[in-house]
């Protein structure tokens, strides 16, 4: 038995958002009586952390602490329209819409504060801890709770804002075929190291080294998790899962229920590193691009290339099962013998 080592890499460009018939998302922000800021969306957080990133965008733009921001993903029947969270569009579209709404709300907030402090709104700033204060004279300040109370019960003003981001529909130029279907592109490269057991065809993914260029990492911890969690999914597709179009019905020997559906467990995970590069997108929220879907992509061909490097077997159909590797090794041995 020999354990053959191999290394391979693959890179990917991935678009942020889609063309559709135009791709919009809306956001509405209003302050509560006590200085909380409710961001109303129809965008769904399915566990990917959109609510966190969007709260960061709102807090940053308003100049208020994260704790003051309440994300309400409401009801798609009644909330402001969002196309949905797919196509890696969430951070980009919804983030931009929230920033636009937060800008308008901030203007009203500063106007109310200016009237309370009897100064010019243009001379005010926020300190990020919840206070609006006079530039150069930080002792002249007012807490957002006081601002909100004044707006509601003295001045009769609604501290609120409206935002929308639309990627307009784009048509190809008939003569050249060029078009602008997505807002920006993120990039990634993964280097995979594998070990192949030449007697059983079993492939072990030893390590994955990832580099991602994503415009701006609004939340670096979440970006790293998306990279490495997504890479696990890539390993799962590459080595274990049967993701064929007719799954799960009508298969001769595929999994028919969950308990037979193979995915790598904690003992199968590779060592991973990830490096984040930032080349801000001019149309992204604080320059951010999307990273939601692309993270399973590069690891898969990287693993295929690593398998080829290890044992000379070129596989083009997933999953790269021990059987497909072993048949490839057998064929190469037979070819070598008959040559």
């Amino acid at each position: 038995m020999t354990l053959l080592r191999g290394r391979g890499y693959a890179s990917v460009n991935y678009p942020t958002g889609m063309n559709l018939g135009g791709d919009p998302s809306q956001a509405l922000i209003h302050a509560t009586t006590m200085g909380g800021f409710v961001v109303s969306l129809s965008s769904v957080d399915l566990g990917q952390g959109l609510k966190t990133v969007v709260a960061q965008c709102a807090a940053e733009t308003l100049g208020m602490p994260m704790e003051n921001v309440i994300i309400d993903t409401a009801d798609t029947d009644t909330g402001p329209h969002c196309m949905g969270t797919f196509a890696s569009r969430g951070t980009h579209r919804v983030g931009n819409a929230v920033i636009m709404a937060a800008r308008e709300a901030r203007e009203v907030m500063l106007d109310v504060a200016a009237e309370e402090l009897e100064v010019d709104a243009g001379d005010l700033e926020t300190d990020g801890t919840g206070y609006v204060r006079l530039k150069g004279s930080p002792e002249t300040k007012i807490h957002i709770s006081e601002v909100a109370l004044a707006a509601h019960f003295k001045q009769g003003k609604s501290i609120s804002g409206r935002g929308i981001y639309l990627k307009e529909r784009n048509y190809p130029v008939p003569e050249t075929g060029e078009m602008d279907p997505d807002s920006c592109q993120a990039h990634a490269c993964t280097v995979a190291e594998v070990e192949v057991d030449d007697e059983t065809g079993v492939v072990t993914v030893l390590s994955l080294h990832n580099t991602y260029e994503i415009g701006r990492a609004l939340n670096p911890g979440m970006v790293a998790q998306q990279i490495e969690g997504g890479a696990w999914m890539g390993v799962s597709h590459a080595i274990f899962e049967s993701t064929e179009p007719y799954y799960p019905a009508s298969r001769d020997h595929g999994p028919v229920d969950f308990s037979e559906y193979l995915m790598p467990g904690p003992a199968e995970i590779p060592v991973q590193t990830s490096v984040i590069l930032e080349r801000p997108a001019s149309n992204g929220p604080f320059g951010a691009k999307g990273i939601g879907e692309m993270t399973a992509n590069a690891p898969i061909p990287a693993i295929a290339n690593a398998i080829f490097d290890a044992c000379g077997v070129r596989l083009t159909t997933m999953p790269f099962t021990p059987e497909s590797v072993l048949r490839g090794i057998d064929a190469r041995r037979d070819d070598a013998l008959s040559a």
Partner: protein
Amino acid sequence: MRIVNLKVNGVGQAFLARPETTLLLALREQLGLTGAKRGCAQGACGSCTVLLDGEPVVSCLVPAATVDGADIATVEGLADGEKLSDVQQAFLDGFATQCGFCTPGMIMSAEALLDRNPNPTRDEVNEAISGNVCRCTGYEPIVSAILDAAERRREGAKL
């Protein structure tokens, strides 16, 4: 239909169980403890993991009628007021959760592991959570958090 008595997180509870009422459904629907999740109903995903007489089990496979009188521990019973358990705090500090669906089951498996083995190796942690499927994190932050929790528990025991 029968009445089943359980001690859940230290509190005596009684509820009506149909023949098809599993321990999981009893906890979620009768007792409002929704930490344990309905995942696969086949015992394969582990999101329903709770402790039965101190041992982790997949509660979706346990007919409630068969465990009358048992001692059940769920994730809701771990914190002491505002103070999270070592495992919970380590998960929080180590960013060991994304969508959160596997998390209660993972935490219960981890608590049981550390109750039995205060100084587990990485491989022993892998084995202990091999019945809990996670689709989001790729497991590494979870394994690290459990090893971190083990260290916190050992430090706490020294004081």
